[in-house]
């Protein structure tokens, strides 16, 4: 990445800072300051945002990040409290359709000029871009992308099952799972049992069976699609996956299974790219597993998009405004996105970043290639389980049905389809 671009952007940033109220100019250039809240406090997420803060400080800014650890909802409660008090942070973590919902309750910053200056729109997936400009103007910026339906294959698990072919379709996947089971693996699939995990099992199934049906049902909530045959097939596939999972895992996350997965006692895991960061933090090597796009019945990769983003809230203070502009430039900067994704295991939002170089893993390269391929075939869709397709209330109502279906094996796929359609109707 050419360093001159960054420097030019920095100059533009300082120029913007100079064009601020008179009192600020009287004291010379105002020092950009950014108040930010996010849930990223620890692990690779915490390390990544700390590194971003360092870059912000290197550019002469004052970085005031208050992480709210725990669930995303805890962070959102703080955001809510600050907005009601009339003191929103200059920028905060927020994603998916919640950006549109929250932008209605407090004024946001119009980022169109700075986005245009960076030529950012051309290099962002269109469905993703739409989420960040709900009323036609950019008010939020995506920072990194994960696919929620990557397929992780345990090398030792594959060896144990004497399998060398990477599954492409759901039929391949099911065949491999059976093969692993007959090779002595009691539970070939290493997924966990959290709500989001159950949601991922279903969305991976449906999008893999038909991305068109997924778009109609989960993104557009089309009534016909919600009751269509693909939904029933997806529930049936979800049941298969959950039957291959360890029932004792209960509601624990997939991370509980990672050792068994790497050791080859479990063979496959359908998870977002973030699992790579978790595996790395747990001390496992890249050679322990292979990452490939999730099963797709038309053999072309389907990409279930999950993107973290920052939304920018309107502030009157000159230093905060300057800080917002600096932050926006940093978030869009390919070098920063590279740095960030290399820490967390995600892929950059920009589709023009070169991932061949050092610091990237094969899994990240596969993911980035899958995104490009899926975008070309219109098979990049927004993840339901990770709150990208619908607002939280609707998502939760849908996941209720899915997670109950996964845990209660007496519910038939037919019944699940009608329950899901009812839940959507009730939550609207």
């Amino acid at each position, binding site marked *: 990445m050419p360093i001159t671009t960054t420097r030019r952007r920095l100059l533009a940033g300082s120029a913007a800072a100079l064009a601020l109220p008179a009192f600020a100019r009287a004291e010379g250039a105002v020092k950009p300051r950014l108040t930010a809240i996010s849930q990223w406090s620890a692990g690779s997420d915490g390390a990544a945002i700390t590194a971003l803060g360092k870059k912000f400080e290197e550019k002469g800014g004052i970085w005031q990040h208050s992480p709210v650890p725990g669930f995303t909802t805890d962070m959102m409660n703080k955001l809510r409290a600050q907005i*009601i008090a009339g003191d929103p942070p200059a920028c905060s973590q927020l994603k998916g359709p919640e950006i549109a919902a929250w932008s209605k309750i407090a004024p946001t910053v119009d980022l169109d000029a700075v986005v245009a200056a960076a030529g950012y729109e051309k290099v962002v997936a269109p469905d993703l871009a739409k989420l960040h400009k709900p009323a036609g103007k950019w008010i939020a910026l995506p920072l990194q992308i994960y696919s929620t339906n990557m397929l992780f294959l345990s090398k030792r698990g594959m060896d144990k099952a004497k399998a060398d072919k990477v599954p492409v379709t759901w039929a391949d996947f099911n065949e491999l799972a059976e093969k692993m089971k007959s090779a002595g693996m009691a539970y070939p699939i290493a997924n966990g049992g959290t709500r989001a995990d159950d949601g991922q099992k279903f969305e991976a199934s449906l999008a893999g069976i038909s991305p068109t049906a997924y778009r109609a049902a989960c993104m557009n909530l089309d009534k016909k699609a919600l009751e269509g045959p693909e939904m029933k097939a997806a529930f049936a596939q979800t049941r298969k996956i959950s039957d291959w999972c360890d029932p004792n895992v209960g509601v624990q996350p997939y991370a509980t299974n990672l050792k068994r997965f790497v050791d080859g006692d479990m063979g496959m895991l359908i998870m977002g790219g973030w699992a790579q960061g978790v595996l790395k933090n747990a001390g496992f090597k890249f050679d322990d597993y292979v990452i490939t796009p999730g099963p797709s019945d038309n053999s072309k990769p389907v990409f279930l998009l999950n993107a973290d983003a920052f939304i920018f809230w309107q502030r009157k203070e000159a230093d905060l405004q300057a800080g917002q502009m600096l932050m926006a430039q940093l978030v869009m900067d390919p070098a920063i996105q590279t740095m960030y994704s290399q820490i967390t295991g995600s892929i950059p939002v920009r589709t023009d970043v070169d991932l061949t170089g050092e610091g990237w893993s094969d899994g990240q390269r596969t993911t980035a290639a899958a995104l490009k391929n899926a975008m070309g075939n219109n098979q990049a869709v927004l993840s339901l389980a990770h709150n990208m397709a619908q607002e939280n209330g609707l998502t*939760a109502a849908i996941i209720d049905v899915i997670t109950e279906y996964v845990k209660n094996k007496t519910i038939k796929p037919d019944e699940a389809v009608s329950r899901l359609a009812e839940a959507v109707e009730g939550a609207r």
Partner: protein
Amino acid sequence: MTEIVSIATRPGRSATSEMVRRLPEFLMIWVPLLLSAAHLISFSIWTIWISFTPSTLIPVSGWVGLHNYNSVLASRNWQIAFDNLLLFGIAFVLLSLTTGLLLAILLDQRIRGENVLRTIFLYPLAVSFVVTGTVWSWLLNPGIGIEKLAHDLGWTSFHFDWLVNRDMAIWTIVIAAIWQSSGFAMALFLAGLRSVDSDIIKAAQIDGAGPIRTYWRVILPTLWPITVTVIVVQLQFAISAFDLVRALTNGGPGIATQLPALVVYDLMFQRSQLGRGAAAAVLMLLILLAVLLPYAAWRYVRQRRAAHA
């Protein structure tokens, strides 16, 4: 009180100095009381108001009538939560009551090491519910807890998977809650047992009553007021149970162990549906009142009777 009255009626003291002298008492009792009452009442009224508005992310004004109530009552989450509350409330209160009473009676036998045992049984009460929930979630997990221990010891047919069995999972909450709070019931009952007039017990013994008969006919009836107190305290815990469930099962597997407090939290903070969350909270308040109002009435009647007697 008697001392205050006697001072107040002592001649030669002005009314003003008397007021100044009693000022600290008023400040200490009335200010906190009024403040907490104002908090309680104002927030309750506010929640009730929100429950009739179309509020989602933040509170907004407007009127939607009973819409929020209808959608909460129609939702599967609430229905499951309500059924669970009935089961959990009754099972938990009865079992913790009987366990507590049994422990108290056993401890009442003037045994050696009573203090140590009493501390052990009371100790769980000092542990927060989140810790209790987490520890029990490990113990009850078939893969790492009691079931695995039994398997490792050679009892391979042993099966105890309640935590991940959606029909039985609610009982794991009952188990953990009893472990936590039967010590509380025990302490109250023990105090009750110790305060029974020894003359009555001696009289019963002279009349030829055996130990079981003495307990059943003479001592236990005097524990009635304590029993009611324990029931009410435990019931209000059961109705507002949140942290224990959140740490132990988090409403799962699936949504099998939902309880009303989880539904309220979920609606308000995870689904950003403040109006519906407030409606669910008001419904919880109504359930609590259904327990507390009869208790208040019972106490009132008892006090009147005592005053007349």
